[in-house]
């Protein structure tokens, strides 16, 4: 397929490049050029997996040995992974808010000659028109005067009052009710208030990204007015915040990164490819400059191996169930013998099940007899999770089981972010203390990225497992793959706890290998999960 071998390096390439397109509804497909090296690499990938659904799968070998056939480059492995089987790839770039604004300006440059008014004024008009250039142009050609008046750029009736800052000796402001005001501001409408009140009024509105008008009527303040009143180049702040409206209008091309405090905007340039994804049970994942990975379609974080439908059904279900479930998980345990949920109502860990009268220890869930009495503190805590609950018939219990795992990995991911920050410090320490170059320390952040991506995949593999037919062979392979990724992730996670910088450098190779292993396991699990979906073994239902 044409789109599979291109734009590979677009991501890593020049991030400053801004792609322009005039009509929002037209699609630009041809963007990057084919990179010799990467197309070569793709052919390598092509060897180990072809079409997603053209194999009768009976064994897990294709997932199990994926890492041996893995091509020898590191970064962006997961991005490349699906390409090989002829599935679509998204062409996108990550823009900062400044780049986004430049992009809007460049768009305006093309329509400005039609209006022959300043950019600031065009932005005011576009805001009024919800950023629909088509509607604005239509109305503009029909009646310029009317558009200018309706957007507050001009008074309906002519006025001989001057616009701008005025000087008085004794002015009473109707907003603050102070007298003796010297400096005031007014537009042609004549509604005049003191500079201090205007300043306060404008500052509150700068970040809303909407037109700021006179306090009494709809006449708009223009950029020079705002700068004259507030100073600090404030009109630029307003203009920049106006990109919110633009992104909202063009939300099939642009999306904000959903991660907290991340201001990245992702621009997809071949949106026609988007419609191709569901067919392959794939999701259009994108990665912003801050390495946040999310789904361009549903706006959730990366939810591989599940597709958008799995994620949606799961999230809905979790919302319905979680309030109940959280309480049950927090406050109760199942009787190890008969499975009834037991709420602990006192401090004593010596529990007696009301239904089967089994006596056990609350902490280790083993029979109380072996505790030798008297000791209310259990020292026999074992980490072994009980297996086999996958097969349970009780659907709530099954759901609880998976939800628990899901939320456990969610918590771990959060802790991994913290770990990520710690790693950053380690990197800095390495550079300063041992004098190693920046490039040589990059294995650390790379490892943490692999870890986080691995955890996220694990987390979302539980919904897939939940919706899958447990009796099917492939589901069993999937579960095995899960277990392999779990151990790979935990291994790497442990390695990242190493504190001593010299030790870290000494074990560089170990970092590399473990991170690679996580990546390949990650890819194997994702592919396996996608197979479950493609073969309708995993069917999400609410």
């Amino acid at each position, binding site marked *: 397929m044409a789109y599979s071998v291109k734009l590979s390096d677009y991501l890593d390439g020049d991030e400053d490049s801004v792609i322009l397109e005039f009509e929002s509804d037209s699609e630009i497909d041809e963007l990057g050029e084919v990179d010799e090296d990467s197309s070569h690499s793709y052919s390598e990938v092509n060897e180990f997996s072809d079409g997603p659904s053209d194999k009768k799968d009976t064994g897990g070998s294709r997932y199990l040995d994926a890492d041996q056939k893995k091509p020898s480059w590191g970064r962006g492995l997961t991005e490349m992974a699906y390409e090989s089987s002829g599935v679509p790839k998204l062409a996108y770039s990550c823009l900062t808010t400044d780049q986004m604004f430049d992009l809007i300006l460049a768009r305006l440059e093309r329509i400005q000659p039609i209006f022959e008014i300043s950019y600031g004024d065009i932005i005011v008009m576009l805001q009024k028109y919800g950023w629909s250039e088509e509607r604005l142009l239509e109305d503009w050609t029909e009646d310029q005067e009317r558009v200018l008046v309706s957007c507050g750029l001009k008074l309906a009736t002519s006025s001989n009052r001057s616009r701008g800052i005025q000087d008085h000796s004794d002015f009473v402001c*109707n*907003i*603050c*009710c*102070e007298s003796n005001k010297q400096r005031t501001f007014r537009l042609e409408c004549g*509604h005049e*208030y003191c500079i201090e*009140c205007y300043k*306060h*009024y404008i500052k*509150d509105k700068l970040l809303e990204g909407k037109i700021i008008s006179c*306090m*009494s009527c709809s006449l708009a303040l223009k950029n020079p007015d705002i700068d004259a009143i507030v100073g600090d180049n404030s009109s630029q702040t307003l203009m920049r915040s106006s990109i919110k409206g633009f992104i909202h209008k063009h939300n099939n091309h642009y999306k904000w990164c959903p991660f907290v405090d991340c201001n990245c905007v992702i621009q997809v340039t071949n949106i026609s490819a988007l419609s191709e994804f569901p067919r392959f049970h794939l999701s259009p994942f994108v990665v912003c400059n801050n390495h946040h990975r999310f789904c361009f379609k549903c706006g959730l974080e990366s939810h591989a191996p599940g597709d958008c439908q799995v994620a949606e059904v799961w999230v809905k279900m979790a919302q319905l169930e979680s309030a109940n479930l959280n309480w049950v998980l927090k406050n109760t345990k199942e009787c190890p013998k008969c499975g009834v949920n037991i709420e602990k109502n006192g401090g004593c860990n010596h529990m007696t099940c009301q239904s089967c009268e089994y006596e056990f220890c609350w902490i280790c869930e083993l029979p109380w007899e072996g505790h030798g009495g008297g000791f209310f503190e259990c020292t026999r805590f074992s980490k072994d999770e009980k297996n086999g609950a996958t097969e349970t018939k009780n659907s709530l219990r099954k759901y609880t089981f998976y939800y628990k795992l899901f939320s456990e990995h969610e918590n771990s991911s959060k802790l991994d972010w913290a770990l990520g920050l710690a790693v950053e410090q380690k990197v800095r320490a390495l550079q300063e203390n041992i004098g190693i170059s920046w490039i040589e320390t990059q294995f650390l952040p790379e490892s943490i990225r692999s870890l986080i991506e691995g955890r996220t995949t694990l987390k979302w593999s539980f919904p897939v497992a939940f919706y899958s037919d447990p009796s099917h062979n492939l589901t069993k392979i999937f579960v095995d793959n899960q277990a392999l990724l779990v151990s790979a992730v935990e291994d790497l996670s442990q390695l990242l706890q190493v504190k001593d910088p010299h030790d870290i450098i000494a074990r560089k190779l170990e970092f590399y290998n473990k991170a690679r292993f996580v990546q390949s396991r990650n890819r194997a699990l994702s592919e396996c999960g996608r197979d479950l979906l493609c073969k309708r073994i995993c069917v999400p239902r609410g």
Partner: protein
Amino acid sequence: MSRAKRVMKELQGIKDDPEAKIDLQLVNENDIHLLKGAFLGPPGTPYENGKFIVDIEVPMEYPFKPPKMKFDTKVYHPNVSSVTGAICLDILKNAWSPVITLKSALISLQALLQSPEPNDPQDAEVAQHYMRDRESFNKTAAFWTKTYAPLNSHAEDKPVDQAELYGIDRALVNQFVSQGFAEAKVVEVLRRLGIKSMNANDNASANKILEELLK
């Protein structure tokens, strides 16, 4: 600082204009943060001859942020919560502008009583009543005005007729009370089911009501 001056001036402005029939007073002489406003129900509406008291909280950023207003007087109106008195009005939210005064906001509330916006309701039960049966709604709203907002404040001490209060057909309530159910319970169930009146031979509804009553 400007807040104190502005509020004092607004208070003076209202005193200087008794024609507007708007009342505004500080709850506590030394605190400009809390006020009570009052206005008369607009004539020609079910709110006529009522005096409506509004609880006003002036935030620190006033007049750049809107004041918080809610009805102290119970009002039967689609855009006012019949329980809390909370008001749904755009100028008290995002359409606020520093030039709006407490007086003009109170006048806007008066206008809101005049022309409800049932499509943007605050109280869904009331809004539904308004949309479905205007005549019955007007009756109930007038009853609330008489009961909770009497102009001549010799408040009646006799207990309020619960059926009339929610615009429910008296005969319907009596029908179930005569079967031995407590009146309060009957009214509660009818409100929950959203039934104001019933056709005499509508057995399906009657059964549903009975079922709820027996729960």
